[in-house]
């Protein structure tokens, strides 16, 4: 059996664990309908408004920065495996690559993306 077959096996095992467990729980667990139970758990008071609202932009900026560096990780892993045979050429080319990406991080840093500004203190 190849690793790909085993991958499907492991994937199915994971899905079975959740689906099977949930099915069993739905089967044997008690069901008592109560209007109050469906309320979101907040402070014991009825909740005000929806929770699907605008969220502070700081989180999204981190996500964009993450995308930049995650793509870099994808690029660098194949390079990392063969860097011994590439020698100094490999080091030089990746130095340029990392320098450009560090510039990106430095720019974001300078722009204040990495500061967690508080609305209250302003």
């Amino acid at each position, binding site marked *: 059996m190849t690793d790909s077959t085993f991958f499907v096996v492991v994937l199915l095992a994971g899905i079975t664990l959740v689906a099977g467990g949930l099915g069993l729980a739905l089967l044997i*667990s008690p069901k008592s309908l109560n209007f109050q139970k469906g309320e979101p758990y907040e402070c014991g008071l009825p909740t005000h408004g929806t929770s699907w609202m605008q969220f502070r932009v700081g989180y999204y900026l981190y996500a964009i920065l993450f995308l930049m560096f995650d793509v870099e990780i994808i690029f660098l892993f194949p390079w990392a495996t063969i860097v011994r045979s590439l020698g100094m050429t490999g080091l030089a080319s990746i130095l340029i690559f990392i320098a450009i990406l560090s510039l990106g991080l430095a720019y974001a840093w300078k722009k204040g993306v990495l500061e*967690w500004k508080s609305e209250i203190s302003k």
Partner: protein
Amino acid sequence: MLIYSQPLELTKLLAAIDNFLQGHLSPGWAVPVKGILVGILLLAAYAIIALALIYIERKVAAFFQARLGPNRLGKYGTIQSLADMIKILIKEVIHIRKADKLLFYAAPFFVIVASVLAFGALPFGINLHALDFNIGVFYLLAVSSLGIIGILLAGWSSNNKYSMIGAMRSGAQFISYELSAGFSLMTIVVLSGSMQFSEIIEGQRYCWNLFNGHLPAMIAFVIYLISGHAETNRGPFDLPEAESELTAGYHTEYSGLQFSFFYLSEYLNMFIVAAVAATVFLGGWMPVQIKGWEAFNQVMWYIPSWAWFFGKAGLLMFFSLWVRWSFPRLRIDLLLNLEWKYLLPINLANLLVMVVIVLSGFTLTDLFPALFGK
């Protein structure tokens, strides 16, 4: 080979089962049966490790706080977590009004599947792994980051403000520390020249990667442990579920078994982080070996490989518990600062230092081939 055939090693047993299946079933049947057996064994190991970890965590936490911990069910409370599991199975699964039903039910799937997929790639011992991809480290990073989708879905779909804040915090934290984990593992990939776990372990026969790459490897090890803690929402980095602020964070609205799925995957992720650290930095299932000391090496091989693996992973797990009960929780801005302003730049520089060390032959195996060489 003599050293592989010692009695407690499971290689022989597995080979015997494999032979039995090949001999008694037609090829069309042997593969599915083998697949089902592997799946069942994997899930059994998953459940047992999770239950054991929950018990150990509660016990160790209790001792750190000078309490006794669970001690009623079974000797020293050993079957407490089993009883908890049965209790949680017969709890009602509550449907939340106004929740996004589809996403609400899909979230545990993502979380569990991600951790099972990562769990399958761990090398527990000689030939004791479900998956051994030649891109093992990369695969592990890829699948383990699927879990955050489940956490974000859980927080979003619950229609609860605590859940939402918890999920957003968790998302920011996870993706940030994902980078550090990736880079520190990459440092070791540079050192060992392979992404396959079995090859990485084989390369550490006489010298662990932690010592082989000396300074950069040790920095990478520390950074990996920090980011591992942060990725699993543990220790001082447990803001997404800071119970004094957010009740339970992203899984506030989950009840019964659905809650336990999140709980289960959290413990398993903790184990996966410890296991990967043990495999990549501390030699995995490879027993402690000293070049030239043949008798000593033989004796070491008599301790089965899976015992070495669980011993090393267990030590790191204990360290993780220790950290958890020793440090106060960070604030979200401090947490993200730590990653983006300290760990990430250090990591990038560290990677380059490692490349220079590897290329100029300053690793221990290159410097002292007589002592540590392969």
